[in-house]
């Protein structure tokens, strides 16, 4: 969207931010209106996190900020100053997928893949808060993440599988 320029020069006032993304600290100057999702995608250059709407409804941009699942379109980059952020790219360790990623693969919890990064991050956040959810709790917990392909059936199955594998 903004090219590869780490400096988001949108005119007017700029503020310094320092955000740790997947363990690596990124310093940048941002316009106050810059959303965290744009900072991650454009300034940091990690495009796994997607934007699916403009009303904070779809959850495709869900990431973890200081360990909590949040919609990164609903947070300004300046609000994330000093925070530690994890995106889909930061989940696998040494080429080994996170158990939630494995569960999505084994249960066909994704089709076109667009909602997937946000869905996986939200699902991990859900299990962090409620390690052994019921199906109903998984459905309620993922209400803020929209998927048009899977009918949620296999997403719910994936999350329950990841929970029972713990």
């Amino acid at each position, binding site marked *: 969207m903004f*090219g590869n320029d780490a400096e988001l020069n949108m005119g007017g006032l700029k503020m310094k931010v320092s955000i740790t993304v997947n363990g690596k600290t990124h310093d940048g100057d941002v316009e106050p209106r810059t959303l965290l999702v744009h900072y991650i995608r454009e300034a940091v250059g990690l495009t796994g996190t997607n934007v699916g709407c403009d*009303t904070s409804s779809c959850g495709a941009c869900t990431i973890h900020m200081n360990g909590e699942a949040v919609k990164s379109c609903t947070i300004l980059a300046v609000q994330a100053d000093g925070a530690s952020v994890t995106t889909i790219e930061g989940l696998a360790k040494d080429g080994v997928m996170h158990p939630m990623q494995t569960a999505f*693969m084994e249960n066909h919890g994704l089709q076109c893949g667009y909602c997937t990064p946000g869905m996986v991050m939200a699902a991990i956040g859900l299990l962090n808060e409620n390690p052994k959810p019921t199906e109903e709790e998984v459905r309620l917990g993922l209400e803020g993440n929209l998927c048009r392909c899977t009918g949620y059936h296999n997403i719910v199955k994936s999350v329950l599988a990841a929970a029972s594998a713990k």
Partner: protein
Amino acid sequence: MAGSILGNRVLRKEDPKFLTSGGKYIEDMNDEPLFAGALHVTYIRSTVAHAKITKIDLSDCKTSPGVVAVFTAQDLGLEEEPSNFNASAKRAHLAIGKVRWVGELIAAVITERPDQGEDAIERAVIDYETLEPLTDVEQAMNSKTLLYEECGTNIVMGTVEMGMPDNTGDDLFKDCEVVVSGRFMNQRVAPCPLEARGSAATWIDGRLHQWISTQHAQGVRGEVAKANKIDAEKIRIITPDVGGGFGAKISAYSEELLLGNISKHLGKPVRWRETRSESMVSLGHGRAQLQYITIGGTKAGRVTAYQLNAIQDSGGWVEVGTVLAPFMTRPMSQGVYDIEKIECRTTSVVTNTTPIVAYRGAGRPEATAAIERAMDLFAAEIGKDPAEVRRMNLIPKFMQTHKTKIGHTYDVGDYGAALDKAMAVAKYSEARAEQAERRKRGDKVQLGIGVSVYVEITGGVDPMQEHAKINVLPNGRAVVYTGTSPHGQGHVTSWAMIASSETGIDIADIDVVWGDTDLVPNGGGTMGSRSLQQGGVAVQKVSIELVDQARKLAAQLLEANESDIVLDKSTGAFHVAGTPSISKSWSDVAKTADAKSGMIHDGIFVANSATFPFGAHIAIVEVDTETGQVKHRRHIACDDAGKVVNPLILDGQIHGGIAQGTAQALLEEFRYDSDGNPLTTNFADYTFISAVELPSIEVIHMETPTFVNPLGVKGIGESGTIGSTPAVQSAVIDAVMHLGVRHIDMPTTPERVWSAIANASA
């Protein structure tokens, strides 16, 4: 894993990428060297539904920060061009003189960065002289105000106008003991792929390169050629990962078709990406068909006559949605039933709304919804169980073709078996008993059971063929080139499975290429549930032929007769029959063919006909009679798509289809006010279905192979939507039938359900 793996639950090859770094959608292509220095296109859109444009003043836009250029139709030399479906209807990609729906393009603003474009378009001044807004099809049919004056009418297509027989009215029912009529609105919905549209274009040595989020690169190439007035050979269309399409990304739209022209004017690459709010009014919508039905028969339950009068809302432009009613709804109007007398007329009408395109099912969900609701009304009228009435009227099992009264020829069908299986899993009679109990007790929360039996048409879009190429590289790996275009359907895995089952090459060693017209010049794309039965079968065909050629080369290498050479598909090795210890690998054979490029073979599979998947769905819902709130409790789906290549992927297609069908039945509607202002232009206002409104889905497998292709496969991409929508709608109505309710239009929102109960008891 090698050898014959068809029918196995194979995990998807494409998933690790999507799960670890995410897909590479067009918006993610910041490192594409050809996009370096790209300018961004933002469109100025009509804010009124129907108006003459009296002034376009973009002077303040031009001085907005970052603006490089602004273009109107005149600036780009655009002219009005006829619709592919009605030559009298003409419009240009940027409006000339008139706008016909909110969201139609008026001008383009070019900026260094996209945010500057969003700021700049706010400064455009467009003066309008408003015209009567026509948002209702019947209003538009009868209005003197015309969207396209040259048509002389707002009716842009009709079966009667095309010479098909008209409906004969009440005469059709004169011998019937029971006759029931209904008016159903199969409402307008928004396809909502999670990835909105995006595209980029640049000219390299006189050749236009365009990246686009599409379901059909080869089709788009033709449209781009027309828009830029150049030969198709001068164009390369490239498809990045596509975040869902559902039919709405089959054709290219004005936003994309203008980019080549704009890039040429600027001498620079250009990029465009829509916001969700733009997408909601400019990506084509689906359904929007008003239906009048009459059904008649005996008191004992035999249906003898059925008549459908479908009025299709085309929206503000004569797009593919216009032709779905006559060519998809009408042929399927008879459904699974043996009905002696049947008639269907369709009329397509332009209105001041977003144009209608193909949306998952595309004309068949409308046909199924009409006949299934009609069956329910008929059953209610004679006081019989809706499942029983269906069973009395089903076309009996046929394993060779069956010609319907409306004039279509189905391949194979066993509708009764599908209904039996679904009813058994649903424990239908127990559910009816529980329903009776709740009714007797007068429970606040009532149970509703909806039944639908459907047949649909897949792979029915001409030409019914697909291209495939297989290249075994000197290192023994294979690359499959396909004219289909996956965007969630898992072709990489399924096509690799098919190629592997013929060649014995491990699926891990098979790559699949699609969507780049320089690499795959011919292809029909992915739509109409055609991919496996034509594209997959083409992969099988070229793989079989390649193995035959390879056996000749292996015979040379092994100094044996060709007829003695066998391919061990479990290892992918060629040897003389009975002597497996001395063998030649695919790598050996490919190197022999050509040390550099290996073995290449391509071909086309031509299908003799479409296929007609069928099934039965049962939905069980709870309805709170005090609030109208519906809870979808159980969904049982028996869908027969012939032989199954990968049950994992099959189930996924069924689940997704059912979610979209349920969404239409319960929640979703794209709405306008009477002035033609859209009311549901984002995901906060449009009630996109979430995990909370859906139950886990109970899928029943049934395989009746078709004789139409050697794999015995039919399409499954849309069946779930077609079967589920009327089942869920009927379940809601069934829950409150004892209160006097006979019909509730979709979406069956709490307000509508509550009102229906209130009106029935008033």
